[in-house]
């Protein structure tokens, strides 16, 4: 029972944070309100050009204002949402929302999501600390540092030229790698092995991917589908691959290096041991990234097919980028096995000679 009680702590903390953050509206300048009552006033059937049947529901919502000078005042507004809910939301009693105000008339601006986000953050880090104990500090700090560096870099990148943006991704990748490697194993020669293996494998993977795509004339690759592209989509595509696969390659390289450095055999045997470990971890690692990248394309894929695009067209246009991204990331994960094993074997040898 005591054992189970321990597991409840993060959940209770998360719920407490969620409730606490229902009272933070004073920090916002935008009007925030809490939904007190909803009533459906009209339901209409909607049919689009492709014979998709949907339902539009208009609800009358009573909202109590939680901040600004009008605090405590109750207003009534209308909200229309659809069954499919691509761009709209059903409002429920108890929910908090941001409002737009124009000449005294209020309309829905956005749903307030900070409380659930904070609650999940507390739950996640609570569980990390519960399961990992002291090591949790190191992991959390490393993640936090990487995040901060990323934000600073992105801020700095704005307005820079294209080639600068590419170098930014490269420099970021190097910093992330070295920093994370040092956090995993400490400030030791083995950290250099891990970093070098990771960076070489990732660079080789991107070069290989670029070469193959250039050779095939980007046949079947539609860069115009890269999301939120404020820059050359091609650049973002490769940048995403570099950053996205870094963690997996890093973990693999550290698994291999840590195991090899403990061995006292010849370089050849060390290399063989590294290959054996790598062989076992590469498959699952590739499938982790693969599932993340492909599942990410679900929403758009369904939208495309429902808008009367063929399955083949949807797979090529929407899922194609996800596939290409997972495949090039997979190159890095596979290449890291011989590259890291080789470097680790050599480094272990050098260490022995100098020792």
């Amino acid at each position: 029972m005591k054992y189970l009680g321990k597991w409840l702590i993060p959940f209770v903390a998360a719920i407490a944070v969620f409730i606490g953050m229902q009272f933070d509206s004073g920090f916002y300048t935008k009007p925030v309100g809490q939904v007190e009552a909803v009533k459906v006033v009209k339901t209409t059937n909607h049919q689009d050009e492709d014979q998709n049947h949907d339902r539009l529901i208009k609800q009358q919502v009573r909202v109590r204002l939680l901040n600004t000078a009008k605090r405590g005042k109750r207003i009534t507004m209308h909200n229309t949402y659809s069954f499919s809910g691509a761009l709209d939301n059903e409002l429920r009693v108890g929910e908090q929302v941001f409002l737009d105000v124009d000449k005294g008339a209020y309309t829905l601006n956005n749903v307030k999501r900070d409380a659930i986000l904070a609650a999940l953050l507390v739950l996640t880090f609570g569980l990390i600390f519960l399961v990992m104990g002291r090591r949790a500090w190191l992991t959390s700090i490393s993640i936090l540092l990487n995040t901060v560096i990323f934000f600073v870099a992105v801020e700095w990148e704005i307005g820079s030229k294209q080639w600068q943006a590419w170098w930014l991704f490269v420099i970021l990748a190097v910093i992330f790698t070295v920093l994370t490697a040092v956090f995993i194993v400490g400030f030791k020669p083995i950290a250099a092995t891990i970093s070098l293996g990771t960076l070489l494998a990732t660079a080789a993977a991107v070069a290989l991917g670029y070469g193959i795509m250039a050779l095939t004339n980007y046949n079947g690759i539609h860069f115009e589908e890269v999301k939120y592209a404020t820059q050359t989509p091609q650049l973002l595509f490769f940048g995403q691959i570099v950053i996205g696969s870094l963690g997996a390659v890093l973990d693999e390289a550290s698994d291999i290096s840590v195991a090899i450095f403990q061995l006292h055999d010849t370089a050849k045997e060390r290399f063989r041991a590294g290959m054996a470990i790598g062989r076992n971890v590469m498959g699952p690692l590739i499938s982790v990234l693969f599932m993340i990248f492909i599942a990410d394309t679900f929403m758009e894929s369904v939208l495309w097919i429902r808008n009367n695009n063929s399955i083949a067209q949807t797979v090529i246009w929407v899922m194609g980028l996800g596939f290409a991204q997972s495949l090039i990331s997979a190159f890095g994960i596979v290449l890291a096995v011989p590259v890291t094993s080789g470097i680790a074997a050599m480094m272990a040898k050098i260490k022995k000679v100098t020792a």
Partner: protein
Amino acid sequence: MNAILALALVLLVMMFIVGGKQGLSNFFALAVNALLMILVVILMASGFNPIIVAIIFGLIILASTIFLSTSQLSVAGPAFVSSLLIMTLLVGLILLTMTLSQTAGFGPEDSEALEGFSVYIGVSFPHILIATTLLGTLGAIAEAAIAVAAGMDEIKDQASATGIKQMGHEIIGTALNTLFFGFFGGFSSLFIWFASLRYPFSQVINNKIFVGELLQVLISVIAVILTVPMTTWVVTTRHAHRRKE
């Protein structure tokens, strides 16, 4: 020649050179998963309930990932059982989070990509989001479960409590980096978007797309963290039962 096909062929060759027979088997598992994921999209688009489709295909993908990546039944068995238990927990957590956060569908930043599309497609986007989160996390759960089960199988009865704990830490640490950077890659263009349009912090933490993506990362991390003790528990219970017999 199609670029994606060329990339896949090169990967096949590389995985065979590095991994031999096991590399081929890994590649085969990947190809099966790719086909399954396409099938999931087709089924969702043809009007089947996305959540039910995701649960059924989640089971199939879990089975194919776990049983194709290791040939030892003493590893695959417990790994599969604990993944199933975690998946059940996960469905509950996802339903709760997604209902409270309302992050399904598209955000204002997507408007350019949506031009010319009808968004009233009669398929529930909240349901698709639940399917996305569930299937996107399964890979990580399967990997952690296999790692724990394989590690415990290797040390068998000599396993000390501290040894198992140590191994668990390493597996979680590994998974954290993979997931964190994996999602960070996808984030990067959105972050650049936010930064170049000077979104204030208060807007970012309530933004539909940002919150939705971050919640997905956090749910995956939670799933992986819970997978480790769960698998340990399944393996120990199994051993205890064996010994009784």
